[in-house]
Protein backbone atom coordinates (compact mmCIF):
# COMPACT_ATOMS: atom_id res chain seq x y z
CA UNK A 1 0.00 0.00 0.00
CA UNK A 2 1.67 3.23 -1.10
CA UNK A 3 -0.53 5.32 1.16
CA UNK A 4 -0.95 5.48 4.97
CA UNK A 5 -4.61 6.41 5.14
CA UNK A 6 -7.64 6.82 2.94
CA UNK A 7 -7.53 10.64 3.23
CA UNK A 8 -3.83 10.56 2.30
CA UNK A 9 -4.77 8.55 -0.80
CA UNK A 10 -7.44 11.07 -1.70
CA UNK A 11 -5.03 13.98 -1.34
CA UNK A 12 -2.39 12.20 -3.43
CA UNK A 13 0.20 14.42 -1.83
CA UNK A 14 -0.92 17.82 -3.29
CA UNK A 15 -1.29 16.22 -6.78
CA UNK A 16 -4.75 14.95 -6.04
CA UNK A 17 -6.62 17.39 -8.25
CA UNK A 18 -4.53 16.52 -11.29
CA UNK A 19 -4.61 12.78 -10.84
CA UNK A 20 -8.35 12.68 -10.16
CA UNK A 21 -9.24 14.99 -13.06
CA UNK A 22 -7.13 12.99 -15.51
CA UNK A 23 -8.46 9.65 -14.23
CA UNK A 24 -11.98 10.89 -13.81
CA UNK A 25 -12.21 12.18 -17.37
CA UNK A 26 -10.55 9.10 -18.83
CA UNK A 27 -12.65 6.52 -17.03
CA UNK A 28 -15.68 8.73 -17.62
CA UNK A 29 -15.00 8.69 -21.37
CA UNK A 30 -14.63 4.91 -21.29
CA UNK A 31 -17.91 4.53 -19.42
CA UNK A 32 -19.59 6.90 -21.86
CA UNK A 33 -18.32 4.81 -24.80
CA UNK A 34 -19.74 1.66 -23.23
CA UNK A 35 -23.15 3.28 -22.69
CA UNK A 36 -23.32 4.72 -26.20
CA UNK A 37 -22.28 1.45 -27.82
CA UNK A 38 -24.72 -0.67 -25.84
CA UNK A 39 -27.61 1.70 -26.54
CA UNK A 40 -26.66 1.80 -30.22
CA UNK A 41 -26.97 -1.95 -30.62
CA UNK A 42 -30.21 -1.97 -28.61
CA UNK A 43 -31.85 0.73 -30.76
CA UNK A 44 -30.72 -0.95 -33.99
CA UNK A 45 -32.24 -4.26 -32.89
CA UNK A 46 -35.47 -2.59 -31.68
CA UNK A 47 -35.92 -0.67 -34.97
CA UNK A 48 -35.27 -3.85 -36.93
CA UNK A 49 -37.79 -5.82 -34.91
CA UNK A 50 -40.40 -3.08 -35.36
CA UNK A 51 -39.69 -2.90 -39.11
CA UNK A 52 -40.12 -6.64 -39.52
CA UNK A 53 -43.30 -6.70 -37.46
CA UNK A 54 -44.71 -3.82 -39.53
CA UNK A 55 -43.67 -5.52 -42.79
CA UNK A 56 -45.27 -8.74 -41.58
CA UNK A 57 -48.44 -6.89 -40.66
CA UNK A 58 -48.80 -5.13 -44.03
CA UNK A 59 -48.29 -8.38 -45.96
CA UNK A 60 -51.00 -10.07 -43.86
CA UNK A 61 -48.37 -12.00 -42.02
CA UNK A 62 -47.34 -13.74 -45.27
CA UNK A 63 -43.71 -14.31 -46.00
CA UNK A 64 -43.04 -10.97 -44.21
Amino acid at each position, binding site marked *: *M*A*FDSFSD*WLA*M*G*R*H*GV*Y*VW*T*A*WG*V*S*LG*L*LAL*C*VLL*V*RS*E*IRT*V*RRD*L*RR*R*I*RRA*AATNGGGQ*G
Partner: protein
Amino acid sequence: MWAFFHKLGSPRWFYAIASRFEPWCWALALILIVVGSVWGLVFAPADYQQGNSFRIIYVHVPAAFLGQSIYIAMAVCGFVYMVWKIRVADMAAAMMAPLGAVMTFMALLSGSVWGKPTWGTWWQWDARLTSMLILLFLYIGVMVLRATFYRLESAARAAAILTMVGVVNIPIIKYSVEWWNTLHQPASFTITERPAMPVEMWLPLLIMVVGFYAFFAAFTLTRVRSEILRREQSKRWVQDMFREKC
Protein backbone atom coordinates in the same frame (compact mmCIF):
# COMPACT_ATOMS: atom_id res chain seq x y z
CA MET B 1 -6.33 -20.01 -44.64
CA TRP B 2 -7.78 -18.36 -47.71
CA ALA B 3 -11.27 -19.74 -47.16
CA PHE B 4 -11.24 -18.40 -43.62
CA PHE B 5 -10.20 -15.00 -44.90
CA HIS B 6 -13.09 -14.82 -47.32
CA LYS B 7 -15.59 -16.29 -44.91
CA LEU B 8 -14.58 -13.56 -42.48
CA GLY B 9 -15.65 -11.20 -45.17
CA SER B 10 -19.27 -12.29 -45.17
CA PRO B 11 -21.19 -10.08 -42.74
CA ARG B 12 -23.39 -12.93 -41.61
CA TRP B 13 -20.46 -15.12 -40.59
CA PHE B 14 -18.70 -12.18 -38.91
CA TYR B 15 -21.89 -11.35 -37.01
CA ALA B 16 -21.98 -14.87 -35.56
CA ILE B 17 -18.31 -14.78 -34.59
CA ALA B 18 -18.62 -11.30 -33.10
CA SER B 19 -21.65 -12.26 -31.04
CA ARG B 20 -19.75 -15.16 -29.54
CA PHE B 21 -16.49 -13.36 -28.66
CA GLU B 22 -17.90 -10.00 -27.70
CA PRO B 23 -19.03 -10.76 -24.13
CA TRP B 24 -15.62 -12.25 -23.35
CA CYS B 25 -13.88 -9.14 -24.60
CA TRP B 26 -16.07 -6.87 -22.51
CA ALA B 27 -15.45 -9.01 -19.43
CA LEU B 28 -11.70 -9.15 -20.01
CA ALA B 29 -11.52 -5.40 -20.57
CA LEU B 30 -13.50 -4.68 -17.40
CA ILE B 31 -11.38 -6.97 -15.24
CA LEU B 32 -8.04 -5.75 -16.59
CA ILE B 33 -8.93 -2.06 -16.37
CA VAL B 34 -10.29 -2.39 -12.83
CA VAL B 35 -7.27 -4.39 -11.64
CA GLY B 36 -4.87 -2.04 -13.45
CA SER B 37 -6.53 1.05 -12.02
CA VAL B 38 -6.56 -0.16 -8.45
CA TRP B 39 -2.99 -1.39 -8.74
CA GLY B 40 -1.78 1.81 -10.39
CA LEU B 41 -3.65 4.19 -8.11
CA VAL B 42 -3.22 2.46 -4.80
CA PHE B 43 -0.43 -0.04 -4.73
CA ALA B 44 2.12 1.26 -7.23
CA PRO B 45 4.86 3.40 -5.65
CA ALA B 46 4.93 7.15 -6.37
CA ASP B 47 7.61 8.53 -8.64
CA TYR B 48 10.47 10.04 -6.59
CA GLN B 49 10.55 13.15 -8.80
CA GLN B 50 6.94 13.70 -9.85
CA GLY B 51 5.29 12.23 -6.80
CA ASN B 52 1.77 10.92 -7.26
CA SER B 53 1.02 12.90 -10.41
CA PHE B 54 3.01 10.12 -12.08
CA ARG B 55 -0.03 7.85 -11.67
CA ILE B 56 -1.62 9.62 -14.64
CA ILE B 57 0.76 7.57 -16.80
CA TYR B 58 -1.52 4.55 -16.26
CA VAL B 59 -4.17 6.32 -18.31
CA HIS B 60 -2.08 8.55 -20.58
CA VAL B 61 0.13 5.86 -22.11
CA PRO B 62 -2.61 3.29 -22.88
CA ALA B 63 -4.71 6.04 -24.48
CA ALA B 64 -1.74 7.21 -26.57
CA PHE B 65 -1.03 3.63 -27.67
CA LEU B 66 -4.69 3.13 -28.61
CA GLY B 67 -4.81 6.44 -30.50
CA GLN B 68 -2.03 5.36 -32.83
CA SER B 69 -2.89 1.66 -33.07
CA ILE B 70 -6.52 2.38 -34.03
CA TYR B 71 -5.46 4.66 -36.89
CA ILE B 72 -3.10 1.96 -38.15
CA ALA B 73 -5.88 -0.62 -37.77
CA MET B 74 -8.19 1.66 -39.79
CA ALA B 75 -5.56 1.91 -42.53
CA VAL B 76 -5.21 -1.88 -42.62
CA CYS B 77 -9.01 -2.28 -42.81
CA GLY B 78 -9.11 0.34 -45.56
CA PHE B 79 -6.45 -1.53 -47.51
CA VAL B 80 -8.29 -4.85 -47.10
CA TYR B 81 -11.52 -3.21 -48.28
CA MET B 82 -9.91 -1.58 -51.32
CA VAL B 83 -8.08 -4.75 -52.41
CA TRP B 84 -10.45 -7.60 -51.52
CA LYS B 85 -13.71 -5.62 -51.33
CA ILE B 86 -14.49 -7.11 -47.91
CA ARG B 87 -17.32 -4.86 -46.68
CA VAL B 88 -16.87 -5.88 -43.05
CA ALA B 89 -13.39 -4.33 -43.16
CA ASP B 90 -14.89 -1.00 -44.19
CA MET B 91 -17.53 -1.26 -41.48
CA ALA B 92 -14.79 -1.90 -38.89
CA ALA B 93 -12.77 1.09 -40.10
CA ALA B 94 -15.84 3.30 -39.91
CA MET B 95 -16.86 2.08 -36.47
CA MET B 96 -13.49 2.27 -34.74
CA ALA B 97 -12.69 5.81 -35.90
CA PRO B 98 -14.62 7.59 -33.12
CA LEU B 99 -12.91 5.48 -30.45
CA GLY B 100 -9.53 6.39 -31.95
CA ALA B 101 -10.43 10.07 -31.74
CA VAL B 102 -11.66 9.68 -28.15
CA MET B 103 -8.49 7.87 -27.15
CA THR B 104 -6.29 10.53 -28.77
CA PHE B 105 -8.27 13.25 -27.01
CA MET B 106 -7.93 11.32 -23.73
CA ALA B 107 -4.17 11.10 -24.21
CA LEU B 108 -4.00 14.82 -24.98
CA LEU B 109 -6.07 15.79 -21.97
CA SER B 110 -4.32 13.49 -19.50
CA GLY B 111 -0.97 14.55 -20.96
CA SER B 112 -1.63 18.23 -20.49
CA VAL B 113 -3.13 17.73 -17.00
CA TRP B 114 -0.04 15.72 -16.14
CA GLY B 115 2.07 18.56 -17.58
CA LYS B 116 0.67 21.14 -15.10
CA PRO B 117 2.45 19.85 -11.99
CA THR B 118 5.47 18.71 -14.00
CA TRP B 119 6.08 21.65 -16.35
CA GLY B 120 3.95 24.28 -14.67
CA THR B 121 1.72 24.99 -17.70
CA TRP B 122 -1.49 23.37 -18.94
CA TRP B 123 -0.30 23.07 -22.54
CA GLN B 124 3.23 22.49 -23.61
CA TRP B 125 4.14 22.25 -27.31
CA ASP B 126 6.22 19.18 -26.76
CA ALA B 127 6.87 16.61 -29.44
CA ARG B 128 4.56 13.83 -28.29
CA LEU B 129 1.61 16.03 -27.40
CA THR B 130 1.91 17.88 -30.74
CA SER B 131 1.98 14.60 -32.67
CA MET B 132 -1.11 13.53 -30.73
CA LEU B 133 -2.84 16.81 -31.68
CA ILE B 134 -2.03 16.31 -35.38
CA LEU B 135 -3.27 12.72 -35.11
CA LEU B 136 -6.55 14.03 -33.68
CA PHE B 137 -6.86 16.31 -36.73
CA LEU B 138 -6.26 13.30 -38.99
CA TYR B 139 -9.07 11.39 -37.23
CA ILE B 140 -11.48 14.32 -37.57
CA GLY B 141 -10.52 14.72 -41.23
CA VAL B 142 -11.25 11.07 -42.03
CA MET B 143 -14.53 11.03 -40.11
CA VAL B 144 -15.79 14.25 -41.74
CA LEU B 145 -14.74 13.03 -45.21
CA ARG B 146 -16.60 9.76 -44.69
CA ALA B 147 -19.71 11.60 -43.53
CA THR B 148 -19.70 13.94 -46.54
CA PHE B 149 -20.04 11.30 -49.23
CA TYR B 150 -23.68 10.38 -49.81
CA ARG B 151 -23.03 6.95 -51.32
CA LEU B 152 -21.73 4.25 -48.98
CA GLU B 153 -19.18 2.71 -51.38
CA SER B 154 -17.66 6.10 -52.34
CA ALA B 155 -17.42 7.10 -48.68
CA ALA B 156 -15.70 3.80 -47.92
CA ARG B 157 -13.18 4.14 -50.73
CA ALA B 158 -12.47 7.82 -50.09
CA ALA B 159 -11.96 7.22 -46.37
CA ALA B 160 -9.72 4.23 -47.11
CA ILE B 161 -7.50 6.30 -49.42
CA LEU B 162 -7.22 9.20 -46.97
CA THR B 163 -6.49 6.85 -44.04
CA MET B 164 -3.77 5.07 -46.00
CA VAL B 165 -2.23 8.40 -47.03
CA GLY B 166 -2.48 9.48 -43.39
CA VAL B 167 -0.85 6.34 -42.02
CA VAL B 168 2.14 6.87 -44.35
CA ASN B 169 2.43 10.35 -42.84
CA ILE B 170 2.24 9.25 -39.18
CA PRO B 171 5.95 8.32 -38.88
CA ILE B 172 6.89 11.41 -40.91
CA ILE B 173 4.85 13.65 -38.61
CA LYS B 174 6.18 11.85 -35.52
CA TYR B 175 9.84 12.29 -36.42
CA SER B 176 9.56 15.79 -37.81
CA VAL B 177 7.75 16.89 -34.65
CA GLU B 178 10.29 14.97 -32.60
CA TRP B 179 13.10 16.88 -34.30
CA TRP B 180 11.23 20.12 -33.98
CA ASN B 181 10.99 20.12 -30.26
CA THR B 182 11.85 17.35 -27.97
CA LEU B 183 11.02 18.26 -24.39
CA HIS B 184 8.99 15.29 -23.27
CA GLN B 185 10.76 12.45 -21.49
CA PRO B 186 11.56 9.65 -23.97
CA ALA B 187 8.65 7.23 -24.39
CA SER B 188 8.52 5.50 -20.98
CA PHE B 189 8.57 2.05 -22.59
CA THR B 190 7.66 0.29 -25.75
CA ILE B 191 6.67 -3.34 -25.65
CA THR B 192 10.07 -4.35 -26.96
CA GLU B 193 12.48 -2.12 -24.95
CA ARG B 194 13.37 -2.85 -21.33
CA PRO B 195 11.22 -0.35 -19.45
CA ALA B 196 13.05 2.38 -17.53
CA MET B 197 10.66 1.95 -14.60
CA PRO B 198 10.88 -0.67 -11.85
CA VAL B 199 8.64 -3.72 -12.34
CA GLU B 200 6.01 -2.75 -9.73
CA MET B 201 5.49 0.46 -11.75
CA TRP B 202 5.28 -0.89 -15.29
CA LEU B 203 3.37 -4.10 -14.50
CA PRO B 204 0.10 -2.24 -13.77
CA LEU B 205 0.83 -0.14 -16.85
CA LEU B 206 1.06 -3.31 -18.97
CA ILE B 207 -2.23 -4.53 -17.50
CA MET B 208 -3.89 -1.21 -18.30
CA VAL B 209 -2.56 -1.27 -21.88
CA VAL B 210 -3.85 -4.80 -22.47
CA GLY B 211 -7.12 -3.82 -20.81
CA PHE B 212 -7.48 -0.87 -23.18
CA TYR B 213 -6.82 -3.11 -26.20
CA ALA B 214 -9.47 -5.53 -24.94
CA PHE B 215 -11.82 -2.56 -24.61
CA PHE B 216 -11.02 -1.58 -28.19
CA ALA B 217 -11.78 -5.11 -29.40
CA ALA B 218 -15.08 -5.30 -27.53
CA PHE B 219 -16.09 -1.79 -28.63
CA THR B 220 -15.37 -2.54 -32.28
CA LEU B 221 -17.09 -5.93 -32.27
CA THR B 222 -20.27 -4.47 -30.80
CA ARG B 223 -20.36 -1.47 -33.13
CA VAL B 224 -19.62 -3.61 -36.21
CA ARG B 225 -22.53 -5.85 -35.24
CA SER B 226 -24.81 -2.82 -35.13
CA GLU B 227 -23.49 -1.65 -38.50
CA ILE B 228 -24.01 -5.09 -40.02
CA LEU B 229 -27.63 -5.07 -38.86
CA ARG B 230 -28.08 -1.55 -40.23
CA ARG B 231 -26.57 -2.29 -43.62
CA GLU B 232 -27.94 -5.80 -44.08
CA GLN B 233 -31.45 -5.23 -42.74
CA SER B 234 -33.06 -6.04 -46.07
CA LYS B 235 -31.19 -9.35 -46.28
CA ARG B 236 -33.08 -12.55 -45.56
CA TRP B 237 -30.77 -13.91 -42.82
CA VAL B 238 -31.26 -10.78 -40.76
CA GLN B 239 -35.03 -10.90 -41.10
CA ASP B 240 -35.16 -14.62 -40.25
CA MET B 241 -33.01 -14.06 -37.21
CA PHE B 242 -35.37 -11.42 -35.88
CA ARG B 243 -38.58 -13.09 -36.89
CA GLU B 244 -38.00 -16.00 -34.51
CA LYS B 245 -37.53 -13.55 -31.67
CA CYS B 246 -40.62 -11.37 -32.04
